[in-house]
């Protein structure tokens, strides 16, 4: 898996000449031609956006806000030198927090408690293979149109609207910087077209002089901090004894991991990840604990919805938490479909 990842990273990081950004790699993109009011198909648009976020070097201030009024923002730096990707995120709201990422390795510093968490997050970087495969079903479940252009944070951006074809997913309005494709603003829309979450750069510098070695230095400097490692272990749902009796339309399994016990629990947590290409859903299964596990709950934070409930059968007693950037009924569909292997 690591070799494949390294290859993907290399592919994604090859720094092209400036003009290359405007071109779409001809062979790689499937020929689904959902009309987008232009020459590009959905896959073209999404691939550009994705590649821009990985290959470009930029820094800026990023703000996430939800209809409920939650607001958080951070300063971010991102650099790619053709071999590696590095990222740094400094929180501007809430408790201080510095996150560093080099490819799939993430280190989070918490200055208040002098603790640093370090993890390898294997799942980052799956997307390119998802889109390149001829099995991509994004156009089957979303319709795309370019609805205009607008300037965000000093950059002209095309506005691409992705409308879901069913009620199992949200819609999106994406501001994609004209030259590079970088997503500068993203709105998540519910079934009525209301904005439930917005994530945007309020300031942005593309091709900023971000020094990778400086970031690497900061990332490695854990002096005075207590280090906590927590690498999730790759497994399969099958091996863990779970199956989805009815698939949820559009969502494919992207992997299953065992995570070390969290928050006072004794057992591992199993995380089974699904995605329809734009939205992802995680099914977390833990051993049921009457003390810790309360009533069934349905929660919402911006675009992220959570459903938590007990799951019991002859084989045992579990606590299921379903989290995803999808409408509540989709979480319910997953919850109702999950069962123990016979």
């Amino acid at each position, binding site marked *: 898996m690591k070799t494949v990842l390294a290859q993907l990273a290399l592919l994604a990081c090859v720094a092209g000449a400036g003009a290359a950004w405007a071109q779409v790699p001809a062979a790689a993109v499937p020929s689904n031609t959902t009309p987008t009011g232009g020459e590009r198909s959905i896959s073209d648009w999404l691939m550009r956006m994705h590649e821009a976020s990985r290959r470009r070097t930029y820094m800026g201030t990023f703000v996430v806000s939800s*209809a409920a009024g939650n*607001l958080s923002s951070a300063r971010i730096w991102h650099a790619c030198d053709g071999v590696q990707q590095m990222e740094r995120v400094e929180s501007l709201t809430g408790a201080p927090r510095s996150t560093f990422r080099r490819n799939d390795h993430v280190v989070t510093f918490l200055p208040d408690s002098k603790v640093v968490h370090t993890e390898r997050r294997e799942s980052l970087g799956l997307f390119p293979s998802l889109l390149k495969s001829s099995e991509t079903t994004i156009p089957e479940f979303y319709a795309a149109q370019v609805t205009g252009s607008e300037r965000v944070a000093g950059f002209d951006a095309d506005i691409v609207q992705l409308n879901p074809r069913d009620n199992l997913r949200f819609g999106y309005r994406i501001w994609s910087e004209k030259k590079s494709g970088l997503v500068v603003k993203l709105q998540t829309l519910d079934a009525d077209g209301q*904005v439930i979450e917005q994530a945007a750069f309020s300031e942005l510098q593309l091709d900023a002089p971000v020094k990778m070695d400086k970031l690497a230095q900061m990332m490695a400097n854990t002096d005075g901090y207590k280090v906590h490692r927590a690498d999730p272990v790759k497994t399969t749902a099958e091996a863990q004894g779970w199956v989805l009796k009815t698939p949820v339309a559009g969502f494919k399994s992207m992997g299953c991991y065992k995570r070390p016990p969290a928050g006072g629990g004794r057992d591992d947590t199993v995380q089974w990840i699904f995605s329809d290409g734009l939205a992802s859903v995680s099914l977390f299964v833990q051993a049921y604990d009457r003390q810790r596990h309360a009533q069934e709950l349905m929660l919402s934070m911006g675009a992220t919805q959570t459903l938590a409930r007990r799951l019991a059968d002859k084989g045992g007693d579990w606590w299921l938490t379903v989290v995803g950037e999808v409408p509540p009924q989709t979480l319910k569909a997953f919850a109702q479909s999950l069962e123990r292997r016979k």
Partner: protein
Amino acid sequence: MTPPPPTAAPVPADTDLMLVERTVAGDQKAFELLVLKYQRRIERLIGRMVRDVDLVEDIAQETFIRAYRALAQFRGEAQFYTWLYRIAVNTAKKTLGDLKRDPLVPESALRGGDDDDETSGVENELTSAETPETVLAAKEIAATVNAAMEALPEELRQAVTLREIEGLSYEEIAQVMNCPIGTVRSRIFRAREAISAKVKPLLENQSGKRW
């Protein structure tokens, strides 16, 4: 073509820091220039958390007051705006917290307070709390700025773009445009003047009323 000989231009200063220093030295008017500069951005930020127009302004005022009071603690390691930003968010959160505990405050004043209220006219966009009138006025201003930019002579447009959007210094712009720094300064000024002249009639006059 050889570039112009390097002039002995000083490195551009951090205007915000200069204004902060003058304020701390006793010049309150210098701080008011910072207020004029950042009022819009701070109100936009707060408007994402708060629905009521008056409340947004109130919190913005409070933000600048707190910043003014705490100015001596601003050491200039971070950008002034980053520091101001944190104060705005904390002030908004504190105010929202206070208001939520006050039984007399109508929930319509707070974001998230009327999710179940069908008559509240939930907005489509997460813009700051505005009346339809100000939304229209804002759109007009944005359109006017864009049109005015298009109408500028090429060298003026280029100069102001390099300054405002690319963030280059006068020295850097002089090299890019291959002209003296004095010319850069003049071009940027004339571009701003031309655009402002078209925008000023759209602004509220001194007494707060539209023309």
